């Protein structure tokens, strides 16, 4: 077991640190092993993939499964669909939940308490809980098998409103007061003072919304039957399985579906952890 830790050490290795690092490496290996096996499988031929007894590394390395997958064509459609849906959902969610979180946290209007209670009750409703009535609603709106039908029902997450509401409550009022005295209106204050201050929280909300939407299976599964409209997770799970499972291809497809988010996480992980701490999620 080697530890692939970057060695820019300032402090010397203590015995305790060595033990912990070895332990960390061992646990990481357990976490990564399934992924590694998936990757190796995708680089085997279909016959080698189902050989008994199984083995880790391909005897003959081949990108045949990846090529076959790309050749079927669907996968690029699914990728674009996933991207369109996730980007739209994330943008809409960020906008409406930031506005609503701020409205509930910092403005007064008639019926605020009742509406807030209603939104909190929404924390308990999801497509999993009320999938069938939600489907008939979307059906009434004529949105089955459309982008609208996939996107809009994902755009009312009470949880995100609640997280941002909690955060906005913590923004010092003095900052806003000063701007009001200078003659700025509510909207101006929101966009020029509050939003820039909340960038880490908004980033966390945005990233988690994007992850959830990219990986969402249940709702797109209910609302689309048309393979051209499917998102990545759905296409791979429903269409590829229905041909009879070709494991090497399935693993290649899975890795393709997972890769974009892994890349995003590698680049943004510091912001993600900071964002989680910043929203107050971790500490309230």
């Amino acid at each position, binding site marked *: 077991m080697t530890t692939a830790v970057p060695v820019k050490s300032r402090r010397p290795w203590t015995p305790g640190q060595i033990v912990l690092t070895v332990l960390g490496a061992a646990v990481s290996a357990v976490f990564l092993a399934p992924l590694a096996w998936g990757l190796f499988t995708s680089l085997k031929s279909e016959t080698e993939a189902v050989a008994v007894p199984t083995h880790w590394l391909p005897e003959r390395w081949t990108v045949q499964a990846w090529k076959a997958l790309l050749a079927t064509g669907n996968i690029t459609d699914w990728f674009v669909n996933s991207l369109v849906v996730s980007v739209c959902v994330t943008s809409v969610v960020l906008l409406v939940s930031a506005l609503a979180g701020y409205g509930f946290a910092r403005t007064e209007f008639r019926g605020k308490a009742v509406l807030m209670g209603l*939104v909190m009750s929404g924390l308990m409703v999801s497509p999993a809980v009320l999938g069938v009535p939600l489907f008939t609603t*979307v059906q009434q709106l004529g949105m089955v098998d459309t982008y609208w039908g996939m996107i809009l029902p994902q755009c009312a997450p009470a949880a995100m409103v609640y997280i941002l509401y909690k955060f906005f409550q913590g923004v010092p009022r003095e900052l806003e007061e000063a701007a009001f005295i200078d003659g700025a209106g509510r909207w101006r204050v929101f966009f020029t003072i509050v939003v820039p201050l909340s960038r880490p929280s908004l980033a966390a909300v945005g990233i988690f919304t994007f992850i959830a939407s990219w990986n969402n299976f249940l709702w797109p599964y209910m609302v689309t039957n048309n393979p051209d409209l499917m998102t990545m997770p759905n296409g791979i799970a429903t269409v590829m399985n229905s041909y009879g499972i070709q494991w090497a291809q399935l693993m290649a497809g899975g890795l393709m579906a997972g890769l974009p988010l892994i890349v995003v996480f590698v680049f943004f992980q510091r912001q993600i952890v900071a964002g989680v701490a910043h929203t107050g999620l971790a500490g309230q």
Partner: protein
Amino acid sequence: MTTAGSVLAPTRAGAGAAGTTTAARPGQGFQHGGWFVAPFLALFSLFVIWPLLRGVYLSLTDANITGTGERFIGLDNYREALDDPLMWDALGHSAYFTLLVVPCIAVLAFLLAMLAHHIERGQWLWRLCFFVPFLLPSTVAGNLWQWLFNPGTGMVNHVFGLDTPWLTDASYAMLALVIETLWWTVGFSFLLYLAALQSIPAHLYEAAKLDGAGAWQRTIHITLPMLRTITGLVIALQILASLQVFDQAVVMMDFGPGPENSTRTFVQYTLEEGFTSYRVGYASAISIIFFVIIAAVALARMWLLRNRTEEAGR
């Protein structure tokens, strides 16, 4: 509100005093506030409140999937549901899954976070390794483990020298589902714990060290109490998520109910009734029952939480 993250929490006194001045501003009240929440409320009404109300209505009818010619049949659907052994089975599977998964996730996430927090080198690497499964779509994680659990060609039996029919034997299927779920979702709770650990003020540990407390004592007397709120949150989120389990179960069982129907979850049963048997009225009735259960769990949590804060306040 006075725990780890309180750096960010509002100072109550200041907020209250300033609040009255803002509220008193003429013309800054109802209209503006109303417009801030309006876009969200529009979407929320259409895709949360309306389906909920519609579900209540449909549950009192014999509606089919086309939504035409439904008849009002009163509480018949509910009566049928309470006598329906498949519904109780499905509810039992979801509850059993939740009971198995939630404590494991909480403990595992805490241990992983402690590990990642205390290793000085390569923080980003540990974060990535423990979190990466959560970044996979549920279907991909499900397919991957379906493949790993395959008795002949799968790695699990190969590595541990077993001969277990994981996905085809009713006594192992749920266990397989739990193992997959732990691997796939623990990263999220791990990240919450890690953020909470990082926001515990360092001076608490320094003070304890000066008083001669060892690493173990510092963990018991500082870390664990400081993490109580995040643990509550992790458990609450995980209970709600686990009760709604669906994706990995159907993917790993090839869209079926598992061996001897042993992994058919509540959500799966609802959707089967609605979309496979076309019994929208009945499916709505069991959805409403499910909603009531989820709401009861959430309210119980709020009630417990309130009691605890009151106790702490005394």
